[in-house]
Every structure is written in structure tokens, then in C-alpha cells.
């Protein structure tokens, strides 16, 4: 189900009404669970089996692990005297090993389901490229949001193994954590320790919370409907006939897609977090003004944050601090010199992270290459840092205000170029199109009215441009003042209401929806 579909909007409105008007405070989580299961059921009843199995696996293994650990610990405590330091260590190690084994088993099952549903056809397709007799594709359903909820359960299982969280003993409550419906469409990937704080005992009705949430939802719809769904029309035209639209058009694609993806993705997250906030639940932020980043690393700390931290916490760190890697690091420093040796582990871990990130984004090679390109760019900028430092030592550009803007623009252009993989969806083609920007000179074409033949009228471009400027100004406010503009507006409540009305009405009028505009799917829908 899409955020922009009418049934979804009605569903959420009805839920909020029932939630506050007819549901006792203590039972509100149960209503959320029912709503989430209903959401899934109406999308496709078979999805329930998948999400149920995944949740049950993580739930059961967590309890077994925790009970086992508690029992071992209690035994150790009770028989303190009979252990010396060595045997105590040994006993503890056995506990840790079994715990780890249990975790791996849980991960195997849940990541296995994800792998089979999402990647079987990808593997077959890849194999077919060298097989003489092509294998036929299998018809597997890909449950909505499987990547999101699988990652949530994986982090839960790992955290249980690490002992940093307490297991949820109520299966239904745990199921709610896994299936909480607003985040099944586009994320974010919540951690149990974060979400559980408000999920089971949400805040009571608070006017401010509900107002903030409501405005946030409107803001999300505004971005999505007025900008993203409008620009997607021109983007489709441009990317479906790459031979026709080369050179300067590729730059147009870059710019349009940067705006489209940003509005679509952050808009979706706004809707998710807004709904949660209206329900009194706090969901972690997923974006922090990514286009104001001054370098790639910073960009990835600000874009799709919950995914980035997930990969850092559960792949990058464990891999780089694993005994094997530490040994490797030591060895390479001894044999390859300090400068190279220090980098080896980081490089390998980072490579693994970006490979995984690429694959996570979609079962296709262009995503893998996209991920690895990110790896290359990050490593390159890491390596160039000393060069930069030298440069800045000489020229003192860094203190100049304009330099920050240059850095922001550079990062934005770099990241937008990488996004071309997602536009053209083919590795070879993407390189070809990117190259054409430099050898096909047709800038003049952009000004002879050909942009009006992409499916958008000049009025469409005007509306999108005004909306983008508006979105930029709101972002700028946050960047400069350091505070959400809602805080300011809420203090002047009549203004707050007025802004809501303007947002609602202008989204309804200027939104690209309904006959003439088929609502396009959210980008991260089947991730």
C-alpha cells in the first residue's frame, strides 16, 4: 500500500481516531498491532506468514539465549568457590560461544528468508549470463518491507547476543516491533532499544505531539506529491530514451533525480515519523540535511542514517575489530609498513559494508556497482585528506565562507552522479551516459523548449521550482537556527494552523496525483 493512496490515508485517519477516542491507554499498543497486521493482511495475506516466521524466530532465540545466559550466570554465582580464574574464564567462554551460535542460527533463518525471496531471481539472472541453457526464473513473492523488518530483527538478535538489551517476553509486543506499519513502506530501520521506549507505552494524547505529527505528515505529502511525483514524469521520459537524451540532458537527470529522490524519500520518512508522532511514538530520524554535507562521509552520516548506523554497528565494527582482522592488521603493519598496514582492515571492512549496502538496495548489479563506487569515492577522499590538508595549509581557503559552499556543491554533485546508476539501471549505460556529459555538447538544446517535451509543462516546472525553493528555505532555517521550524511556528500557534492549511490546500491543488498522474511507487517500497 502506498502512502499516497486514498485507502492508506483513510486507514491512518481512522486508526488515530480509534486510538485516542476508543482505546484504553494500556491497550493502545494492541490496537497498533492489529492495525499493522491488518495493513499487511490487506496488502497480501501471505505476507503475514513471512513476517510471522521472522518475528517468531528472533523472539524464540532471544528468549532461549537470555534464559541460557541467566542460568549459566546464576550457576556461576552459586558455585563461586569451585571456580578458579581459569575455569571461570573457560566457563564464560563456553557461554559466549553458545550464545553466539544461537544468534547465528537466528540470523541464518531470517537472512535466509530475505536472501531467498529477494535474491533468488537475481542469482538466476546472473548465472544465466554465462550459462548456455538459461534457467527459468522462479515466482517468489517479495513481502513488503522485508528488508526493513529483517534488519530490525537481525539487530535485535545481535543486541540480545551482546547482552545490550533485554529480550521482549511478550510475543505480541515483539511482533508489533517487527511489524509497526508506518515503517514498513520506506523505513527507517528502528532499533529495539529506541522504538521499545515509546512503542508499548506511548505518550498520552498531547496536543503538541499530535500537531507536530500532523504538520510533519503534511510536509511529507507536500514534498512527495508536489515535487517528487511531478518530476518523476520527466525523469521517466529522459531515462527511457537514453539515446535521445544525452549530454546536457544527463545533467538534467542528475539534478531532477537529486530533487526527486530527496523529496520522495525524506517525504516518506516525514509521513512515517509524523504518523508515529501523532500516535505518541518516537521513531528515529533518518535524515539530517544530507545535501548540506561537505564531504561524502558526512553525507552518509546524514542520508538514510538508520541504514548507515546499522551497517556500521553490525558489519563494519564487528568485522574490523574481529580477532582475525586485528591479527591481519598487526601482520600487515609489520610486513607492509605502518602506512599501508593501518589501512588494510579498514579497507576490507569498508568494502564489505558497501558491497552489502549495494546489495541491500536491490537485487541488481547496478546497485552493487553503485555501492562499490561509493566505497571507491570514500576511500579516495580518505586518501586525499593529507593532500587537502597540505593545500589548505598553503592557501587558507578553508576560512573563507565561499569555500564551505564549494564543498557542499562538490559533495552534492558527486553524490548526484553516483545516483545515475539508479536512474539508468544498467552499469554500462550509466558510464556511457555520464561520459556523454563531457563529449556531447548540446546545452543549447535545454533552452529551445525541449524540456517542455518531457511531459511537464512550464507551469509544472514553475510549481516544482517554487516548492523546491520553499523546501530549501525550511532546511536552511534548520541549518542556521539549529531547530525545527515547527518549534517556532508552534509558539505562534495561529501561524502554525495557517501553515498547515496552506500546506494541505496547496498539496491538494498542486500535487501530481489522480487521473493524469498515476501515483508512482515509493522508492524503498520493496526493500
Amino acid at each position, binding site marked *: 500500500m502506498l502512502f499516497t493512496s486514498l485507502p492508506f490515508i483513510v486507514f491512518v485517519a481512522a486508526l488515530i481516531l480509534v486510538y485516542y477516542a476508543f482505546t484504553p491507554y494500556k491497550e493502545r499498543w494492541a490496537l497498533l498491532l492489529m492495525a499493522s497486521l491488518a495493513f499487511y493482511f490487506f496488502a497480501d495475506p501471505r505476507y503475514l506468514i513471512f513476517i510471522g516466521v521472522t518475528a517468531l524466530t528472533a523472539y524464540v532465540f532471544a528468549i532461549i539465549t537470555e534464559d541460557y545466559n541467566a542460568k549459566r550466570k546464576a550457576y556461576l554465582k552459586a558455585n563461586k568457590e569451585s571456580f578458579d580464574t581459569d575455569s571461570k574464564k573457560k566457563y564464560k567462554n563456553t557461554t559466549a560461544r553458545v550464545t553466539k551460535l544461537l544468534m547465528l542460527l537466528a540470523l541464518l533463518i531470517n537472512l535466509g528468508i530475505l536472501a531467498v525471496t529477494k535474491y533468488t531471481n537475481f542469482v538466476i539472472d546472473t548465472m544465466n549470463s554465462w550459462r548456455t541453457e538459461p534457467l527459468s526464473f522462479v515466482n517468489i513473492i517479495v513481502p513488503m518491507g522485508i528488508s526493513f523488518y529483517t534488519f530490525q530483527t537481525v539487530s535485535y538478535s545481535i543486541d540480545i547476543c*551482546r*547482552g*545490550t538489551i533485554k529480550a521482549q517476553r511478550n510475543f505480541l509486543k515483539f511482533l508489533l516491533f517487527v511489524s509497526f506499519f508506518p515503517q514498513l513502506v520506506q523505513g527507517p530501520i528502528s532499533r529495539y532499544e529506541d522504538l521499545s521506549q515509546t512503542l508499548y507505552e506511548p505518550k498520552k494524547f498531547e496536543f503538541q505531539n499530535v500537531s507536530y505529527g500532523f504538520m510533519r505528515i503534511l510536509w511529507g505529502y507536500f514534498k512527495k506529491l508536489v515535487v517528487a511525483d511531478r518530476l518523476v514524469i520527466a525523469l521517466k521520459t529522459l531515462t527511457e530514451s537514453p539515446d535521445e537524451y544525452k549530454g546536457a540532458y544527463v545533467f538534467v537527470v542528475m539534478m531532477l533525480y537529486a530533487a526527486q529522490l530527496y523529496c520522495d524519500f525524506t517525504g516518506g520518512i516525514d509521513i512515517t515519523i509524523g504518523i508515529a508522532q501523532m500516535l505518541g511514538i518516537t521513531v528515529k530520524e533518518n535524515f539530517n540535511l544530507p545535501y548540506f554535507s561537505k564531504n561524502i*562521509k*558526512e553525507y552518509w*552520516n546524514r542520508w538514510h542514517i538508520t541504514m548507515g548506523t546499522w551497517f*556500521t*554497528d553490525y558489519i*563494519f*565494527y*564487528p568485522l*574490523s*575489530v*574481529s*580477532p582475525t582482522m*586485528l591479527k591481519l*592488521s*598487526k601482520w600487515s603493519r609489520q610486513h607492509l609498513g605502518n602506512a599501508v598496514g*593501518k589501512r588494510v*582492515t*579498514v579497507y576490507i*571492512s*569498508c568494502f564489505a559494508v558497501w558491497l552489502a549496502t549495494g546489495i541491500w538496495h536491490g537485487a541488481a548489479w547496478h546497485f552493487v556497482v553503485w555501492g562499490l563506487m561509493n566505497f571507491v569515492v570514500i576511500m579516495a577522499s*580518505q586518501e586525499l585528506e593529507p593532500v587537502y590538508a597540505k593545500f589548505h595549509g598553503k592557501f587558507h581557503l578553508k576560512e573563507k565562507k565561499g569555500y564551505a559552499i564549494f564543498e557542499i556543491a562538490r559533495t552534492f554533485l558527486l553524490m548526484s552522479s553516483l545516483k545515475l546508476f539508479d536512474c539508468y539501471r544498467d552499469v554500462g549505460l550509466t558510464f556511457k551516459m555520464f561520459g556523454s556529459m563531457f563529449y556531447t555538447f548540446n546545452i543549447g538544446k535545454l533552452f529551445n523548449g525541449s524540456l517542455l517535451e518531457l511531459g511537464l509543462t512550464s507551469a509544472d516546472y514553475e510549481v516544482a521550482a517554487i516548492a523546491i525553493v520553499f523546501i530549501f528555505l525550511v532546511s536552511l532555517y534548520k541549518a542556521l537556527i539549529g531547530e525545527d521550524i515547527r518549534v517556532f511556528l508552534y509558539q505562534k500557534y495561529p501561524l502554525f494552523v495557517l501553515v498547515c492549511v496552506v500546506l494541505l490546500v496547496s498539496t491538494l491543488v498542486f500535487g501530481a496525483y489522480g487521473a493524469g498522474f498515476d501515483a508512482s511507487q515509493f522508492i524503498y517500497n520493496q526493500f
Partner: protein
Amino acid sequence: MDELIEILKDLHSDVDFDTCTTLIDDKILDSFDIVSIVSEVNDRFDVAIPAKELVPENFNSAKALWDLISRLEED
């Protein structure tokens, strides 16, 4: 402790690690730095910091990091 500060200084010579308590929160140390620190600490103190300890609370200040190392040494 001094040795630890030395490790940190190697990474960022321009930071006052004795007083700073927001190394992570202010994004002074990034994930690459943390991995470097872990591997240096492993070398010099023979202490393996497991992944589960790689949380902001343990890396926000040199003091916190030192406490972590001491705690792990005891185990």
C-alpha cells in the same frame, strides 16, 4: 592514560583530548578512527575491545575510553 592520549593525538593532533567529552557527539572521531583506536589499543595494551563496546558512551572522552580499557583488562 598518557599512552592512550598519544594514540589519539596521532589521529587528530589538533584536539585537546584531555578535556574534550564530546568526541563522538561532535563527530571528531568517525568510525575509521574508532577502528584505528581499537587496533592500536589491541597492540599496545593487549586488550581486545569487542564490537558491543563500540558505543558513543565509551568513546566520547579519553577518560571514558581509559575506563573501558581498564574494565576490559580486569576481566
